[in-house]
């Protein structure tokens, strides 16, 4: 059954807005209702915006009155700055999800639920397998922040799907999303003129281009693919490699200092890279996307490297070390060598 009346949560943030706009543009869809606590910044087409906090039972009324059949729950906030603090972020992420699930459970009309999750739930540790598949348990559960929220959210979603087996639940575990409009801690991180890294470590990171994230969400909304899927661009980048591709000189910082530095940064509102994410900067994480390609039937158009390059391009990041200068320097040296040979030859 194709979706006709869709509810999108977290519609005021870039990904939610994109999804709402794309759904609204589709003629088969009768109604698109966007829910968020703040009004969306840009035009969402014919999306009806409901300013509602999913933390209170108002959401149930919205679902009931509109006769929603598909719920896209994208309101998982990674950045405490956006939510207005860690406590508020946790409220929105966890309590909001509980409220939404409660509303869905009561609903007669809802038959599909798509939940945005994150690969952060796999944690980051030195004992991680190279690639996580959907069935793997994290070696070390995320101890705080976003990752912990996501673990709890997924727990509630699992409970929900047990109670309402008739509702198809799709959980999409997104890798770090980078794209033109994405404002994530990682995006901010790469915008620094010099990039602090953990001394002695070089994590593998996996990225997802925002256009791929959008396509996957729309495909999930269109239906037919219940289950849990890792969503990430093919391949990986080493953090050092990414930093070099962005033309940023890295500044290695000893492990113990990284936490305090990140705490200082969040205090100064420069970037909020939660201390619990420091493990990610040391050990990285990569996931296996076989199930996405074979079961879900979607192959990301951007590889990790391509997603990163396009991020650098679209953001107009001015490289501190210009690759063109490097090429020029190389050519200059080659030219010098050639000239020396020509002079030396006769």
């Amino acid at each position, binding site marked *: 059954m194709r979706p006709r009346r869709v509810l999108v949560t977290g519609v005021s943030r870039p990904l939610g807005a994109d999804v709402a706009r794309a759904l609204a543009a589709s003629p088969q869809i009768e109604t698109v209702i966007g829910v968020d606590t703040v009004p969306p910044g840009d035009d969402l087409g014919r999306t009806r915006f409901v300013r509602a906090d999913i933390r209170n039972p108002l959401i149930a009324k919205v679902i009931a009155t509109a006769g929603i059949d598909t719920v896209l729950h994208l309101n998982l906030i990674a950045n405490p700055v956006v939510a207005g603090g860690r406590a508020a972020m946790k409220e929105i992420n966890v309590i909001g999800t509980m409220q939404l699930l409660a509303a869905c459970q009561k609903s007669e009309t809802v038959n599909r639920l798509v939940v945005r999750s994150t690969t952060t739930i796999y944690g980051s540790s*030195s004992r991680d397998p190279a690639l996580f598949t959907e069935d793997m348990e994290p070696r070390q559960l995320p101890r705080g922040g976003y990752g912990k929220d996501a673990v709890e959210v997924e727990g509630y979603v699992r409970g929900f799907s047990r109670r309402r087996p008739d509702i198809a639940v799709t959980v999409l575990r997104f890798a770090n999303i980078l794209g033109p409009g994405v404002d994530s801690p990682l995006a901010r991180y790469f915008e620094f003129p010099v990039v602090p890294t953990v001394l*002695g*470590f070089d994590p*593998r990171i996996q990225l997802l281009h925002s256009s791929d994230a959008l396509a996957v969400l729309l495909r999930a909304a269109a239906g037919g693919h219940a289950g849990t899927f890792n969503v990430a661009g093919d*391949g990986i980048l080493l953090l050092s490699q990414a930093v070099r591709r962005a033309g940023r000189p890295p500044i290695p910082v000893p492990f113990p200092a990284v936490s305090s530095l990140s705490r200082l940064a969040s205090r100064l509102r420069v970037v909020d890279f939660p201390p619990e994410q420091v493990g990610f900067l040391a050990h990285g994480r990569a996931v296996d996307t076989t199930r996405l390609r074979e079961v879900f039937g979607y192959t990301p158009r951007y590889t990790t490297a391509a997603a990163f390059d396009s991020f650098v391009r679209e953001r107009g990041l001015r490289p501190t*070390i210009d690759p063109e200068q490097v090429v020029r320097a*190389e050519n200059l040296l080659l030219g010098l*060598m*050639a000239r020396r040979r020509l002079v030396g030859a006769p």
Partner: protein
Amino acid sequence: MTAAGQPPSGEARIIPLARRPARRAAARPPAAGRPAATDPSPDAAQAGATVSPMGRMPTTGRPSPADGSPTDDASPADDASPAAGGAPSPDAGARTSKSRTASRSAANTASAASRKRPAGDAARVAELPDRSRGAKKPAADSARTSKTAEHVDGPASSATVDGDAKPTPRARRAAARGTTPAAATPASTGARKRTSTTRAGRPTPPAAEPTATGTGDATTATGGVGETDPVPAATAARAARIAPAADMAPTAGTAPPAVADTASPAGPGPASDTAVSTRRATATRAKPSAPEIAAAPGPDPATLPDVDAAPIADPAGLERALAGMLAFLRRRITGDYEVDELGFDADLTEHVIAPLLRPVYRGYFRVETRGLENVPDTGGALVVANHSGTLPVDALMTAMALLDHHPAHRYLRMLAADLVFSVPFLAPIARKTGNTLACQPDAERLLGKGELVGVWPEGFKGVGKPFSERYKLQRFGRGGFVSAALRTGVPIIPCTIVGAEEIYPMLGNAKTVARLLGLPYFPLTPTFPWLGALGLVPLPSKWLIEFGEPVDTSALTPAAAEDPMLVFELTDRIRETIQHTLYGLLMQRRSVFF
């Protein structure tokens, strides 16, 4: 002997198989004078199968129908020499080198040919003085002479191309003499060179052994030419003997064309009838050699492009090397390189890590590798090896062996303990050089992708065992590697490493310190930690790495991985194989350091 027994370090290490037989053969110089048929030793049989100059030689003596063409001038002796024919040429023994890789059947046929050959030639040579009286015959003979001379040229040039086996001055002289009268034709030498270069990789110095016998025989040959010298001549020997004969009958007009013909049978042969017939004979005879070359034992480690042999000597080469270095730096600075999803950085491994390890591999531990043909060129395989040495240097050396000396230059993807990935600086290097966490999913992922995976199932128990327990295999984990291989259906290749035990003899274990540092053990060696960082310099033991016969698992279904009994049995079998090979190699080892 010098050249045969002790080829300069570089290559001989690669074909350790060659060394012992070669030494043995060289140890009995009078092999030439040995009664003919008494020595159909396996050595000889295998020697025939080797394709270096010897492999080509059988063609000369092959009793092919074409052989009959020049026999209008052949004395009965030619046929009456089966007795002498049984004798293997001494260099045959010396060239056992790669032969073990050759299939037995090939060896037998080839050796049959080679057994016939020397006699035929010897007999023909013996006729020389008689026939040189005839007007026509010298031409034919000198043609034959020059042909044989070329054979000398073959090995000699191959030795030089080799850059490995330095031909002794004698060999060079013999070769030179062989070439001067006749084979000076550039065409022939060129052609020879081509063939010889294809073989140049063969690390056994082909010219060396002939020299020893060559000069010895040469004197007899020049003095009392011919008679019934049944000595199954070595190539050089024959050349040396024949060279003067060619001088005796320097029918300059006929000889060189004949030579040219041997090199390129298609060439115009304006010579006398006999010369032409000789040519035809040689041409036909030359043919069988081709399949023999083709049938050369597959993986020949020495044919690998030698990284050190990069043409840095000439300025253009230097410039290319510099340009390559610049390109590498550019790639690194701009991040323009590929890293696979497990974090393996081939660019870095090949251009930085391997060049750093290579001197250690070659110069310091002088690693000898055996049985590389047991490692498949493509597809997944699981290399299972014993672990030792306090620090896992053995893993690095095994990886180097497969990267440098395997014909397909395979990267070994190693499974490492989780400790490795939590140590700063070590963790990223480990991933970039192809290590990944030793866990079932990673192993199966790599094997499923068709990678060559290395595993050291003894783990810390093996690498950190006290020196007193050296070369005693520890428990082989829980057999996880076997079930990974069963699930992916890849062969298991037992690999035995000798020499790694002695690099850091672990005399004691400071357990308290280890616990404080969170390490599995804290080694106390004769030098560490007493000498500080200097104590980290390993002892220069001599290493042997042998890859054994693969254990095929394709017959077993992936379901077999669920059968613990089968998994344990297979684990045990592989452990036993490695333990036995260890004992065998230890017996062969002359000393720890040489």
